[in-house]
């Protein structure tokens, strides 16, 4: 009984202590409130006298910026990046080409031009590792003493995802032609085409780079029609893909068939040849029965 009463008394006491504490906070809130009314008030990003003296790098972790005029294309920052968000292409002038690549603010003569220097800020993880190795101190997080040049970018929000891919290179097409690298322009064009195609999402293409012949869409066939038409090589005439094998009930047999399918694909076999290959493989494993064979044969004529 004593414990029962004590419990109640302790309970009431501790509850009143708590309530008086919250009431205290209810009253004097001004000096304790931690809320920042974000769009109206902004917490200052800490900026330290960074200079570009290697001992005093910037502490800011905001957007990456590159002074492309100073970039010598040494690829140090690209190598330091753990997430591969920096992508640099460089072109060296061919022998005998007298193209002037320019000079940096540290009086280093540049030996190549940089036609591509993209930083994908949506991949960047703000680790600051790329800033430190730069020999010309031309890549840095925006802010600090450079404030006059580049304002601190608070949100750098964009409406589209590719808006976060920043291109810093300023080399013009003329420069690239002058330096004697027309092939680069061609390559770039192809890449841009690929990108736009992916943006339009006209069906997923698999391993186009590795196996250009087998640009067979895995996704639903009707959707895939457009990119197939765009592809240089005519597509599979027969409607046969890895999903088609699913009619086989036996798990083991189906596994072998799928393996065979992938093997055929790797061997760049197509259409009828592919089906023949699968049948041969199944036969080899002595798992081929009459039904399976006839259905597979049926695919050759285009019926499921």
């Amino acid at each position, binding site marked *: 009984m004593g414990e029962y009463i004590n419990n*109640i008394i302790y309970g009431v006491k501790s*509850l009143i202590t*708590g*309530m008086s*504490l*919250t*009431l205290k*906070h*209810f009253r004097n*809130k001004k000096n*304790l*409130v*931690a*809320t920042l*009314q974000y769009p109206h008030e902004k917490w200052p990003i800490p900026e330290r006298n960074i200079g570009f003296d290697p001992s005093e790098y910037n502490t800011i972790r905001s957007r990456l910026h590159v002074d492309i005029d100073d970039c010598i294309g040494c690829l140090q920052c690209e190598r330091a990046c753990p997430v591969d968000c920096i992508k640099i292409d460089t072109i060296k002038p061919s022998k005998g080409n007298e193209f002037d690549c320019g000079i940096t603010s540290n009086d280093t003569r540049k030996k190549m031009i940089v036609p591509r220097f993209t930083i994908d800020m949506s991949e960047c993880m703000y680790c600051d590792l790329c800033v430190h190795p730069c020999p010309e101190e031309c890549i840095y997080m925006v802010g600090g003493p450079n404030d006059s040049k580049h304002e601190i970018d608070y949100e750098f929000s964009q409406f589209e995802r590719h808006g976060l891919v920043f291109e810093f290179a300023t080399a013009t097409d003329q420069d690239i032609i002058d330096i004697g690298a027309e092939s680069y322009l061609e390559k770039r064009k192809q890449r841009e085409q690929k990108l736009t195609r992916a943006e339009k999402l006209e069906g997923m293409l698999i391993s186009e780079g590795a196996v250009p012949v087998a640009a067979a869409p895995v996704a639903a066939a009707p959707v895939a029609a457009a990119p197939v038409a765009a592809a240089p090589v005519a597509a599979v005439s027969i409607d046969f893909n890895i999903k088609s094998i699913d009619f086989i009930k036996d798990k083991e047999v189906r596994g072998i068939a799928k393996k065979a399918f992938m093997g055929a694909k790797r061997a760049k076999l197509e259409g009828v040849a592919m089906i023949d290959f699968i049948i041969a493989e199944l036969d080899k494993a002595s798992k081929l029965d009459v039904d399976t064979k006839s259905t597979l044969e049926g695919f050759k004529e285009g019926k499921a």
Partner: protein
Amino acid sequence: MTSVVDSLLNLFSFTGLDNSILLILVLHIPALSIFLVMVVNATVAVYVERKVAAFMQDRLGPMEVGLFGFKGGKKFWGGIGQTIADAIKLLTKEDIVPDSADKKLMLLAPFIIFIGAFLTFIAVPFSQNLVVSDFNIGVFYIMAMSSVGVIGIIIAGWSSNNKWSLYGSMRAAAQIVSYEIPIGLSLLLAVLVVGSLNLGDIVQWQAENRWFIFHSPFTFIAFFIFFISVVAETNRTPFDIPEAESELVAGWMTEYSGFKWAIFFLSEYANMMIVSIVASVVFLGGWLSPFAIINVGIPNSWMIFDGPLIGIIWLMSKALFLIFVMMWFRWTFPRLRVDQLMYLCWKVFIPFCLANLFFVSIWELIGGLFFK
């Protein structure tokens, strides 16, 4: 004490209609008013709750949405339009019904809860003569009607076809049914002393004697038991076990969204209002002023002098204070566990209530012999 319905019938008697027809026409006015009171109460209470929470937690709370261009700066009124914006959002939101839910029951549940709260309001006096219908059995009626909601809660939890919701509704049923007992036993003290179930009579007795909470030490304890029990009955922290957002996500409300969920909210805040008013009426002198001087006037002029307009201020300020205390509880305490909740009810409150009942009876007996 006259009721609003009586007064309205008197007021419109010049039309010469038959009373039964007139009653049907006239009833719309109090019904709409009750609905309005519920809506306004929920809107204001949600805003106040958010602000109280924010201030106790060293935050600012809603600060962006103003009302007609009024924002109030960094003060209590900073986001005065917030709940209106929220309400519009809730009403226009998609109503999601789980595929495997029992759709008819799921639709029915919010309305049962709403009807429970709505019907209770009929007997709740806002001031002298300002009660929709003045029952002889007011206390009993309120007790009965406020328990209707639990049916809706069980239906809601069951029909959602969600195990967590089921847990929530089962907990709610056990909790609400249990806490009816200490509530009833505490109200019984007032009934015992006054000798009437009519809320008006109870206040009248307090006007003649003293506030019921100060009547005896036992009624003083009874008030706290009553108040804590009604906090439990309205499912608020520290007794929000049926909702328990860190355990059951939102308990029986998990699968509800949009308009139905808004109705749950409306009823919850209406219930808070009801129990606070009942607590004020029964224990804190109802519409009597703490100074007991203003409560004079010309009889039968119910519009102005005889309490209503001044009384409503007193009653509402008492009730609002109690609502504030409920919020204060919520933002201070952790949550009890199911069995501890039951322990508190059956092993602490009910024995105390029974003892109270016994001692108050003796007090009355002795008091009757010596003081009067």
